[in-house]
């Protein structure tokens, strides 16, 4: 059974006045139904840009996109990058859906939420407006909004942040998509609401047997919900593996550094945080060689100054575990233990 989404060598760049912004380079991953893939990275890592390309939401006049994003539909595979935009449009909201970070601004303020959900339903289903509203009430019930039949006529500003995100989820799932991309869905929410929403997403995934891509910068959230993870930095995937491997055997200095720099509620020893020095590079003028080199504590271990001259490939260091680093597996194991932390 092929995974529902296969992304192969996807690259997105934006020509600007200051130069070519290489937002994401050579991205490859796949997601199967029932599986959650986390795309982890900080701002500027390219995580959103990549998934927007999969959805076909970039303005093709402003972005150069190459590579493939193949949806293995029942009717056959469709590459959203090269397919006709109209074909891709008809997949949006039907086979693949996306929810965004800020539910406050992601819903149209002038239309009732029932209307907005019914609009999504009516695109792909025959029926009257009343049918659409009925379906909207069903969806609102499903995502746990109390008093759905009354609230369906209300407007976005009458809902709290958590409720709005539930509405967004209801709207995204109304046509039973096979792929759900959630772009920082809980970042703007309180932590108690966050756990409600994450649980809802998990339940919905089971209900609809969806492939889920979760984009986030929160390593705690990733650990809770993901099956596999891709860590992105400066537009490239730097590490990719099953979830436990990322946390217990991180195979990239960036991941190692990140895991050791975040404070945790379950670690009360008060050790000083090991911050990663420096800043992410500019995507217009990426340095030669490895993009992480200027912040990496281990680059001297690599002979011939390779980190400064050669861009490392995404190698499979151990089975199923990929890392874009010139260090050998043995060196990485040493690096992990010297960094301390849980790694």
């Amino acid at each position, binding site marked *: 059974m092929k995974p529902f989404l296969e992304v192969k060598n996807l690259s997105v760049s934006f020509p600007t006045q200051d130069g070519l912004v290489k937002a994401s380079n050579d991205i490859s991953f796949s997601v199967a139904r029932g599986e959650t893939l986390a795309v982890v990275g*900080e*701002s500027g890592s390219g995580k959103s840009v990549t998934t927007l390309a999969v959805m076909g939401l970039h303005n093709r006049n402003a972005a150069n996109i190459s590579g493939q994003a193949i949806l293995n539909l029942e009717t056959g595979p469709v590459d959203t990058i090269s397919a006709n935009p109209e074909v891709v449009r008809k997949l949006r909201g039907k086979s693949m859906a996306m929810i965004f970070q800020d539910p406050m601004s992601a819903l149209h303020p002038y239309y009732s939420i029932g209307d907005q959900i019914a609009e999504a339903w009516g695109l792909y289903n025959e029926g009257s407006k009343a049918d659409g509203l009925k379906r909207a009430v069903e969806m609102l019930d499903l995502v746990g909004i109390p008093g759905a039949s009354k609230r369906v006529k209300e407007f976005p500003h009458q809902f*709290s*942040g*958590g*409720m709005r995100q539930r509405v967004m989820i209801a709207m995204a799932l109304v046509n039973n998509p096979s792929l759900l991309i959630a772009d920082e869905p809980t970042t703007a929410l*309180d*932590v*108690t*609401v*966050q*756990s*409600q929403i*994450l*649980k809802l997403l998990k339940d919905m995934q089971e209900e609809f047997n969806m492939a889920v891509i979760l984009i986030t*910068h*929160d*390593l*705690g*959230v*990733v*650990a*809770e919900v993901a099956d596999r993870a891709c860590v992105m930095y400066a537009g490239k995937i730097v590490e990719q593996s099953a*979830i*436990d491997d990322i*946390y217990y055997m991180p195979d990239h200095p960036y991941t190692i*550094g*990140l*895991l050791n*720099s*975040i*404070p*945790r*509620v*379950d670690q*009360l020893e*008060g050790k*000083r*945080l*090991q*911050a*990663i*020095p420096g*800043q*992410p590079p500019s995507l217009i003028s990426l340095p030669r060689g490895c993009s992480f080199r200027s912040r990496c504590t281990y680059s001297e271990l690599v002979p011939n100054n390779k980190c400064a001259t050669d861009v490392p490939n995404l190698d499979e260091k151990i089975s199923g575990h990929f890392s874009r680093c010139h260090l050998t597996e043995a060196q990485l194991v040493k690096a992990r233990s010297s960094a301390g932390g*849980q790694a």
Partner: protein
Amino acid sequence: MTEPILKLEGLKKHFESTSGGIFNKKKGTVKAVDGIDLEILPGETVGLVGESGCGKTTAGRTVLKLYEPTEGKIIFQGQDITKLSRRQMKPLRAQMQMIFQDPFASLNPRQTVGTLIGATFDIQGIKPLGGVKQEVERLMERVGLNPEHVNRYPHEFSGGQRQRIGVARAIALKPKLIVADEPVSALDVSIQAQVVNLLDDLQEEFGLAYLFVAHDLSVVQHISDRVVVMYLGKVMEQADKKDLFLSPRHPYTKALLSAVPVPDPIKGRSRERIILSGDLPSPMNPPAGCVFNTRCWKVQDKCRVEVPALLQIAPNHRLACHFPEPAA
């Protein structure tokens, strides 16, 4: 017994919400902060946590008298500053400073870094030895910025660097207390650690006391000595950091802690998660009795009627709950 640098007694800040228009009728009161007691000893960090609408940001600002308190007392360095006027507050402001959340909005985009930091000296009429310019450059270096950038504008810096500018501005006059309002929430994860470490170092070097207002429990845990948990304007629980995180006694604290995702998949899978039902009530219409009763899984009739007092249940551990959780 050291004198606390800051003491809050029954501090309240209520906002009147009016209907606007010609008659401007009172529509209701938002009880943003509804009675908090707090003490901060010199050189100590007290973390003030809670979710949106709990009143922590308002509390932080009221402490510095950016808002006038509605009720209660603020005692700073042994002096009751609650009723002081703006003019009377001015000389004290050198001793109490604030670091803001949004590194983009809290700096005037039309002023250079040098002006932004140097303004503190001008406002207080203090002339540092060697001149303002030298001191500004020294401060920039201390917070990890390149002093050669003193004539650059905020938009030429990254988010983390801008936050460092905010820190430099706050420590310029060597204050005794800094209220940090979500200082790292808007920063990238890898930069957060840098700024947190900076704040730690500065605290050691200058003996600063911090009131650290945040919603991120992980950061609060790392930096605080004691933690105060707020909900809808009231204090739910208050304890030494270790006690609070290892043995939370208030149902809300427990729920809050269980909701924080931990970067550890195995732990995450096996954890008992308490998922709170319902929505946060409106601060304009807080529930009667214990403000948490509408979402508490242990709620009983008493909770809906009687407001629980903040009582001491262990050394340095105070709680406002009729039916506390057992100690761990």
